[in-house]
């Protein structure tokens, strides 16, 4: 009689013992599979958080050192004379760092924009102040108005718009056209809202000029107009919050240094300086180590010309609870594995040892030990495979519950985090310009952050079957070996 036949007889005739073993393995397998699936889901959620929120740090001049200021008697104010970030600094830092996805130098500027050279200024998208804001805009439109800042647009000079912080954190999305790089001269990106309000489209030409107050300060009577082609439009992903139109994200122009140089009175030397350099890591987890490298540089550590700031607080805040869950799941997996190993080991060992009588009989009728072991292995294999297969279905029920739990945890965390930090996605801390645009409540991002699914990947099922079978086989072989090491006569005497 073959081992397969004997195994079949045992499993079908000793139903009580078979069902008990099946249930034990089923419970362990379900718990293990749930923990493994949950682990996968949490890891995916962590990756989503990192990818959605991104990770970056930025470098800017150390303006807090009062020794770096000179008093300008003519202007009657203190002027910062310290080092400003430059392209050379950005290249030098990037060459020291591995794992950067890119970087972008930014500087804020301001400009007035018209559809024709010397023509009427474009209408700005109003701010939240509503009528008051419109009134201020109307007054600013008067010729030679020194309060024409109310009809200027914020200009973000950027070496590569694809790495502009707003694009990187997905608070604005390129909806039409293309991104621009520092090689582009005379190209801009504007918002869909501004384009719609003024009947503009990708490919249209607009004209940019300095504001009156800048001209006056530099004793220039006539502004220089520079033509610029709209290379692309962006949509705002969330709500732009600004009292006045001139500081809102809808009225932001993203362009390059060359474009600004062609209309502004500022010197080329002045425009070589940037406000900030934003560095983006492929994995936000590397931000801290990257910053440590940067902060060890002489110009950061010794002369303290520059300061680096992490921009991964939101990643840390949202990822925090996930990390806690991840640690909990690790502990659960370890616990399930340890308890599973102990229970299975005890159950299978005692099961094999209980069969000393049968083993002795089979040995006495001349069956070889390998043949007897094969029967026991076939039995445990069949039961383990069945239990693991049923565990896949029982895990589906548990997955839904864990999915709901994770979803509510994440949603609550994100909402709390938004309330605590005002959830303002800040672009640049400008040195010499009014408040920068802010965008809150990135709805698409929140949705992608809380989207979590506890699913069984093929690898999870493979791990379950693999670990289950391996564990069962090892337990059976170990128990059998201790039995087979006895002489047949000893087995028979124990049997008696």
């Amino acid at each position: 009689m073959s081992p397969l036949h004997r195994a079949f007889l045992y499993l079908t005739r000793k139903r009580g013992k078979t069902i008990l073993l099946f249930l034990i393995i089923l419970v362990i397998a379900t718990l293990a599979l749930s923990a493994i699936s949950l682990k996968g889901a949490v890891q995916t959620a962590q990756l989503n958080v990192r990818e959605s929120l991104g990770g970056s740090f930025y470098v800017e001049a150390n303006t807090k050192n009062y020794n770096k200021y000179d008093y300008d008697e003519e202007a009657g104010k203190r002027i910062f004379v310290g080092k400003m970030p430059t392209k050379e600094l950005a290249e030098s830092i990037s060459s020291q760092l591995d794992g950067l996805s890119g970087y972008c130098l930014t500087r804020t500027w301001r400009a007035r924009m018209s559809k024709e050279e010397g023509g009427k200024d474009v209408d700005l998208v109003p701010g939240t102040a509503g009528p008051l804001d419109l009134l201020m805009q109307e007054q600013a439109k008067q010729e030679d108005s020194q309060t024409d800042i109310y009809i200027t647009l914020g200009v973000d000079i950027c070496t590569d718009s694809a790495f502009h912080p707003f694009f990187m954190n997905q608070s604005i999305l390129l909806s039409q056209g293309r991104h621009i790089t520092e090689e582009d001269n005379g190209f801009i990106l504007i918002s869909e809202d501004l384009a719609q309000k003024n009947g503009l489209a990708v490919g249209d030409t607009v004209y940019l000029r300095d504001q009156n107050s800048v001209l006056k300060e530099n004793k220039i009577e006539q502004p220089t107009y520079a033509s610029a082609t709209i290379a692309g439009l962006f949509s705002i992903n969330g709500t732009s919050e600004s009292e006045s139109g001139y500081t809102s994200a809808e009225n932001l122009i993203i362009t390059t240094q060359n474009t600004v140089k062609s209309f502004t009175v500022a010197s080329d030397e002045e425009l070589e300086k940037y406000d900030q350099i934003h560095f983006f890591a492929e994995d936000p987890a590397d931000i801290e180590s990257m910053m440590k490298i940067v902060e060890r540089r002489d110009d950061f550590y010794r002369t303290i010309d520059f300061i680096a700031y992490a921009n991964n607080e939101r990643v840390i805040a949202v990822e925090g609870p996930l990390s806690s869950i991840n640690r909990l799941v690790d502990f659960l997996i370890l616990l399930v594995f340890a308890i599973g190993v102990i229970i299975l080991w005890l159950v299978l060992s005692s099961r094999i040892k209980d069969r000393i009588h049968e083993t002795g009989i089979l040995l006495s009728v001349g069956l070889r030990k390998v043949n007897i072991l094969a029967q026991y292995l076939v039995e445990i294999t069949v039961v383990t495979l069945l239990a693991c297969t049923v565990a896949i279905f029982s895990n589906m029920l548990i997955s839904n519950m864990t999915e709901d739990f994770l979803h509510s945890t994440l949603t609550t965390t994100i909402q709390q985090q938004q309330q605590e930090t005002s959830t303002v996605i800040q672009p640049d801390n400008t040195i010499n310009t009014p408040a920068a645009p802010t965008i809150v409540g990135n709805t698409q991002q929140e949705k992608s952050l809380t989207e979590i699914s506890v699913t069984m990947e093929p690898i999870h099922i493979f791990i379950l079957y693999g670990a289950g079978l391996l564990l069962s086989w090892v337990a059976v072989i170990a128990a059998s070996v201790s039995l087979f090491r006895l002489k047949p006569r000893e087995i028979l005497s124990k049997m008696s």
Partner: protein
Amino acid sequence: MSIMEVRSVTYSYDGTKNVLDDISVSFEEGKVYAILGPSGCGKTTLLSLLGGLDVPTKGTILFDGTDIRQTGLGAHRSEHVSFIFQNYNLIDYMTPLENAALSATKETAMAALKRLGLTESEIKRNVLKLSGGQQQRVAIARALVANTRVILADEPTGNVDDAMSVEITNILKESAKETGKCVIIVTHSIDLAKEADTVLVLKNGVLQKQRPAELETESN
């Protein structure tokens, strides 16, 4: 013709006292041997050595002139000898047919069981639902159908009544005659021993050959 030979075998559990002391004996095919002796004299030990369940401290056991350790004890058990135990030793989740078919085909097992008087329904019933005598018949059938030349029986009538004891004894005798197998029975029953062709009395580790007739005189 000698099929098995015990040559100068000594066996000791603890190395000090010999249970078997320099025993030599040979067994022939087609004959029934009874090993007789008081409890604890080493009868079952000798049977275990013959069956390859244990190895002697000294000496050799030959099967067809070859040391069974050279053949391999596992191979010796599966190819040369089959066992009948006092407590039947049947596998409880198998039917009588499946128990008997452990070392033979189903057809052969079925024929043997029927020849030993089990009905069709008894053959397919759970083995534990049979009476003691029927269970012992199943154990005998399992030994008979195995393709071996020696049957080693350890107190085969120990757990059955007198009538069944006689019946089992007859079955074993007939098997030896019909199939030419060598049947070696360990027993402390003089009645059973008297039915054997040769009686071997084991006392104080020493084996003495006696004829059954001499045994009758002694018992009187």
